[in-house]
């Protein structure tokens, strides 16, 4: 049983090596792939030095395309499971190992690491979201729950684990614009077992969040369109079981 852990990275030279080292320590038997989404800094070099395989997109394509590249690599190279986490150091690798346990035990096809914890989903010990993020999170949580009739707390989480069924679905259908939310909607619609697991998340090691209030508003608007359209999208062919 082979597992691939991939890390989408865009200009994350400050943190990518630390994240790779963490993954190799927490998941010693697994292969590590960094998808460099057209970085202009030395992300790819740092990643290679740290011992990861690097897939370099020649120009910035957006998170969705970067994630899809990772899923494609896992699918085509015969990996049984894959997981991904952010390159900025917010996602502790041992938590990724916990997500992978869920798909390895075949309890789910796709497992999402949630930074929020029931029953008080907005307050955690380690993580304090900004106002923009709190608003966006609640809006998406509401509409995604409405669309999928399944409760999700962390709709935009970039820490996930998947089996081959989810891999093959995401390597063909992944919106470059709105990866996280649409993929959840899609997975539920296609009958995948999607599970959310509360995880510990940390403050960023390097870089800064791209969320300003204006961008958040645009982000939310775009997300709602994606969700609305997604409800009326025709189902794709039956994915690999």
């Amino acid at each position, binding site marked *: 049983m082979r597992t691939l852990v991939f890390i989408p990275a865009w200009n994350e030279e400050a943190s990518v090596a630390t994240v790779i080292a963490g993954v190799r320590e927490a998941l010693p038997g697994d292969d*590590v792939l960094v998808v460099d989404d057209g970085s202009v800094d030395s992300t790819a070099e740092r990643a290679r030095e740290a*011992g990861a395989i690097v897939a370099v997109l020649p120009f910035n394509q957006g998170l969705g*395309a970067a994630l899809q590249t990772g899923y*494609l690599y896992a699918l085509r190279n015969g990996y*049984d499971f894959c997981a991904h986490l952010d390159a900025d150091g917010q996602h502790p690798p041992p938590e990724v190992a916990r997500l992978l346990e869920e798909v390895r035990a075949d309890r789910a096809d796709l497992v999402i690491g949630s930074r929020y914890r029931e029953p008080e989903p907005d307050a955690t010990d380690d993580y304090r979201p900004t106002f923009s993020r709190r608003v966006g999170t609640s809006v998406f949580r509401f509409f995604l729950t409405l669309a999928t009739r399944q409760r999700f707390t962390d709709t935009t989480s970039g820490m996930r684990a998947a089996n081959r069924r989810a891999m093959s679905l995401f390597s063909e259908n992944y919106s470059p614009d709105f990866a996280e939310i649409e993929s959840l909607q899609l997975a539920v619609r296609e009958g995948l077992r999607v599970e959310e697991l509360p995880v510990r998340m940390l403050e960023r090691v390097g870089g800064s969040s791209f969320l300003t209030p204006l961008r958040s508003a645009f982000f939310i608007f775009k997300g709602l369109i994606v969700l609305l359209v997604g409800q009326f999208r025709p189902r794709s062919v039956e994915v690999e079981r």
Partner: protein
Amino acid sequence: MSTLLAAATEPTVHLTSQTRILAAAIAIAFMAMILELIRRNQLQERYSVVWFVAGVGMLVGAAFPGLLGVVADAMGVRDTNVALFSIVLLLLLGLALNFSVIMSRQAAQITRLAQERALEKAREQAAAGNGAAESRPQAPPPSSSSSR
């Protein structure tokens, strides 16, 4: 009042022969420009059809201005100018949308192309063995049957 009504219902089109000649000349020049762009490989044939249709439409409009009146009548528009502008505006809107659709398709193609290249390079690196430090054999053939 009665003269105004009479003028409004009158189906004549206010095009002098001078404007008709000018319109025809522009239409012909336009189509010549499209041909020249195709000849210089700056425009692909499949995207030129719609512009040719536009040029022919202009020419027909210049040759038979009465047609415009008929079209305006069919639309229920009293002023032929309004009819003309509405039609042109709608056509341009449709054309712009068409371009957005083409652009989206090409963006998706470019993305997939970039992904394929990245994957190939990554596979090369994995095969060369300077990636993961494990001694386990790396990257079986793409159509691996090891997936269970």
